């Protein structure tokens, strides 16, 4: 036993005499690793949440969830989750100018009080473009408001201090666009259907200003209270007119 102890002591001395490779400072690498792991976990949580929402949405749409009986009916395919709008808002890329923190701010910038369609309520986003002075209320898709040509936009209501007339659309490109005169809230207006990808003109105190339609949907445009108001959306003519009827 004494020999074992002596051997153990010699082994311990050997351990002390060994020249180990120097241990590096691991702290920066560990901190970075912890941050990376956190980001990975966050991404997984977000993906799981998106999947859960998609599943719930699909199941609810199929009216097949029954909590007490725990019945979940299989649907043919998972609905794709609504894409979330880009960081700057759903109006990014539509050339709407600057996003405004509130409707009041936008009204201050535009110098006029905005007309709001009561049927749609408060807009999800408000934008203002100084030239040619267009204030935009943006509504994301929701029940009763399908997405327009842009999957993240249900409707844009664009307003400018100007007037329009039949000649405003003289430059509409031929090829299927139809311009139908209508009256909206007592003002002259037009229902423009069929891919209206073209210029039109505002008559305004500052001279005629051209503008383009933003979405691929049909457009209802009319004069009201010194403003030109237009609704671009995926709504049909009846739907657009019903919404327009609540603009005040």
């Amino acid at each position: 036993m004494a020999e074992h102890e002596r051997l153990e002591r010699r082994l311990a001395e050997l351990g002390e005499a060994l020249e180990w490779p120097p241990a590096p400072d691991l702290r920066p690498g560990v901190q970075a690793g912890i941050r990376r792991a956190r980001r990975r976990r966050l991404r997984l949580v977000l993906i799981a949440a998106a999947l859960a929402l998609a599943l719930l949405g699909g199941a609810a749409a199929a009216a097949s969830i029954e909590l007490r009986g725990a019945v979940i009916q299989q649907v043919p395919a998972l609905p794709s989750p609504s894409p979330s709008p880009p960081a700057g808002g759903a109006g990014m890329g539509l050339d709407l100018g600057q996003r405004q923190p509130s409707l009041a701010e936008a009204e201050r910038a535009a110098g006029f009080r905005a007309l709001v369609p009561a049927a749609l309520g408060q807009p999800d986003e408000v934008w203002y473009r100084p030239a040619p002075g267009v204030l935009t209320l943006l509504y994301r898709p929701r029940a009763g408001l399908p997405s327009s040509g842009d999957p993240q936009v249900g409707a844009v209501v664009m307003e400018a201090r100007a007037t329009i007339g039949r000649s405003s659309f003289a430059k509409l490109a031929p090829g299927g666009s139809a311009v139908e005169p209508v009256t909206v809230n007592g003002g002259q207006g037009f229902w423009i259907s069929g891919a209206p990808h073209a210029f039109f003109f505002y008559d305004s105190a500052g001279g005629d200003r051209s503008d383009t339609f933003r979405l691929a949907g049909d457009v209802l445009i009319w004069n009201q209270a010194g403003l030109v108001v237009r609704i671009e959306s995926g709504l049909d003519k009846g739907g657009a007119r019903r919404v327009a009827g609540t603009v005040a």
Partner: protein
Amino acid sequence: MPEPRGLPRCSGYESRAVVGDPPGTTDDELVERARRGHAAAYDELVRRYTETAFRTAYLVTGSAADAEEVAQDAFVKAHRALSRFRAGAPFRPWLLRIVGNEARNRRRSAGRRAALELRAAEHMDAGAFVPSPEGAAEASEDRRALLWALDQLPDEQRQVVACRYLLQLSVEETAGSLAIPEGTVKSRQARALDRLRELMEAPRHG
């Protein structure tokens, strides 16, 4: 002379850095604070156990570069697992179990044999270890003989001896690092010591 792998070179006597030396705050307190999200507390635990984790990984992988990655990954995994760590349990054995797992995975994926190659004995230099040249030569020869004997052991016994004596790990820590029961640590250790004694007494060949 090929670069030795697995076992550190043996040089003159150096005071082995004391690992886990508590500068005031206990491991328990640091773990508790780290669990609540205090980055500095975990930093301190990393600083405290870097050397032990690195050397343990080095013994298993036989590569300093692998040992660095293994130890770093083990600290990251340990941080993630802190919520499952039993409050009041000793941190070091738990950490070394994670290090051991990581190191074995790394060694397997690298297709390496068990490390601990003992050619390092050729690098021994008694230096200031003993006062006289005769004594230095004697000590150097003794360590050389011991390293040679260690090299003759089967891998599984050699790793136990390395953890227990070269790294000064407890039986529990050795068992955790090598993923074997504590009873196996003790039996392998006993067999290894018997064998080492025989080897040291027998005439040396090679």
